[in-house]
């Protein structure tokens, strides 16, 4: 039996982002994997020393090019806690609206990438076509499509008008209808099931031991969702429960994310229906002092921000632990024993965001 080391990434046709894995193979079977990161390390954490804490919101948003709003929002939550600021109820609800729009477009992007990974080009294009409906909503309400700088310390920068809310509701209805056309292909198509069912299984015990978060953990039966654990923003007033599956394989991870699409549509509708009147933001003054750990549920799972203020306008330390970083041990556990041909699908099912991870 031949044993070889094969570099997988950082540039690879199926990888949306440049993770580098050295795969140890026995013929076509993976027996070990060694990750390395740093290819897109940007030193963003270091920038807190030269950008004041208000400006740094824009840097925090750029940690990730997909779930940018939730990064900015979580950073703002940390600053608000350090400065003892309570944000207006309308801002809490608008943060939920944009968070869930971000989750929708992130999951639709992921569905497309997954379809691409197992070679179903039409499904890939249909998924991304649906994503455009969500991006239209974000663009209308903020002017941006992916990075839109709507969160700020003290609240939000922009409002959603009644006309815009009606536009979003219309797009969500269209999205819901058209999702019904592609979801059966992901969950029931025999060719797709052959690539996903029983592949890359992570048991519940493994998920807990390895510190998996987000849809990876929930697909293994771990009912962990920061929206329900922490009830931040307006989630304490909205109906949200973790979407879980129990098989722990690639299909289960797909099933969880599809369930979360429907859940996010419902949350946005409810948040728009209950959107309270009032201010968008409160004035934030002073300089942060002390440590704070802010958490939120991103599309990929729990994110943790560590902010350390030293009484100046510059933070002493800004650190983000991204969900992809937390899911790397689970990925390394699911690779051994798998066929080389399944590696792209396995990597994709943790929804890796390497720019986030390398910061």
């Amino acid at each position, binding site marked *: 039996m031949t044993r070889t080391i094969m570099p997988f990434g950082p540039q690879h046709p199926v990888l949306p982002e440049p993770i580098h894995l050295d795969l140890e193979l026995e013929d076509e079977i993976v027996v070990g994997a060694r990750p390395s990161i*740093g290819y897109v390390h940007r030193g963003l954490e270091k920038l807190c020393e030269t950008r004041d804490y208000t400006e740094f919101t824009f840097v925090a948003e750029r940690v990730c090019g997909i779930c940018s709003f939730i990064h900015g929002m979580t950073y703002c939550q940390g600053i608000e806690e350090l400065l003892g600021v309570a944000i207006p109820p309308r801002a809490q609800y608008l943060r939920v609206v944009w968070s869930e729009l971000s989750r929708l477009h992130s999951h639709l992007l992921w569905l497309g990438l997954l379809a691409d990974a197992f070679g179903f080009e039409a499904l890939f294009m249909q998924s991304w076509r649906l994503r455009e409906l969500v991006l239209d909503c974000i663009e209308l309400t903020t002017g941006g499509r992916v990075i839109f700088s709507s969160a700020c310390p003290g609240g939000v920068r922009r409002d959603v008008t009644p006309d815009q809310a009606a536009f979003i509701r219309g797009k969500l209805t269209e999205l819901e209808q058209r999702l019904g056309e592609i979801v059966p292909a992901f969950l029931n198509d025999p060719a797709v099931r052959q690539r996903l069912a029983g592949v890359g299984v992570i048991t519940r015990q493994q998920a807990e031991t390895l*510190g998996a978060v987000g849809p990876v953990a929930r697909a293994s039966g771990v009912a962990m969702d920061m929206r329900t654990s922490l009830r*931040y923003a307006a989630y304490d007033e909205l109906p949200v429960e973790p979407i879980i599956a129990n098989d722990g394989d690639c299909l289960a991870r797909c099933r969880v994310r599809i369930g979360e699409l429907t859940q996010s549509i419902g949350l946005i509708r409810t948040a728009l229906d209950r959107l309270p009147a009032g201010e968008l933001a409160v004035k934030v003054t002073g300089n942060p002092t002390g440590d704070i750990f802010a*958490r939120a549920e991103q599309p990929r799972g*729990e994110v943790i921000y*560590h902010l350390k203020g030293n009484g100046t306008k510059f933070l002493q330390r800004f*650190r983000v*632990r991204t969900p992809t970083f937390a899911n790397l041990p689970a990925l390394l556990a699911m690779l051994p024993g798998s066929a080389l041909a399944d590696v792209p699908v396995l990597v994709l099912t943790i929804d890796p965001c390497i720019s986030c991870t390398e910061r």
Partner: protein
Amino acid sequence: MTTTPAIEPVTGATLTDRAAALTRDGWRFAQACATTLPDGIELTYSFARAADLQHLRLTLPRQEAPPVPSLSAICAPAFLYENEMHDLFGVTFSGLTVDYGSQFYRTAQPFSFAPQAEPQS
């Protein structure tokens, strides 16, 4: 949602015992990170249980810091965070279950967050 941290100072001798006790009590290892201080490096280990967070904090001197006992035998995912702290901050760990030998975080400048690091010319 943020958590005002309960930060417990620990030493190299008590770190693993405290981490083991927290794990036994149902706390999940959530993250570990390092911060450069004027006179040293501060390591913070975070454990989560539902909405609560608890932290262990170890402060190392700037020069000739002893190896830090690894938590990777107690909390499996800790190996990744410890490899990162080594590659970015130059912190050394003893008993690391998986040691990537400075090859996990490949940056142009080794130990780029370490106190002695100078900007590239």
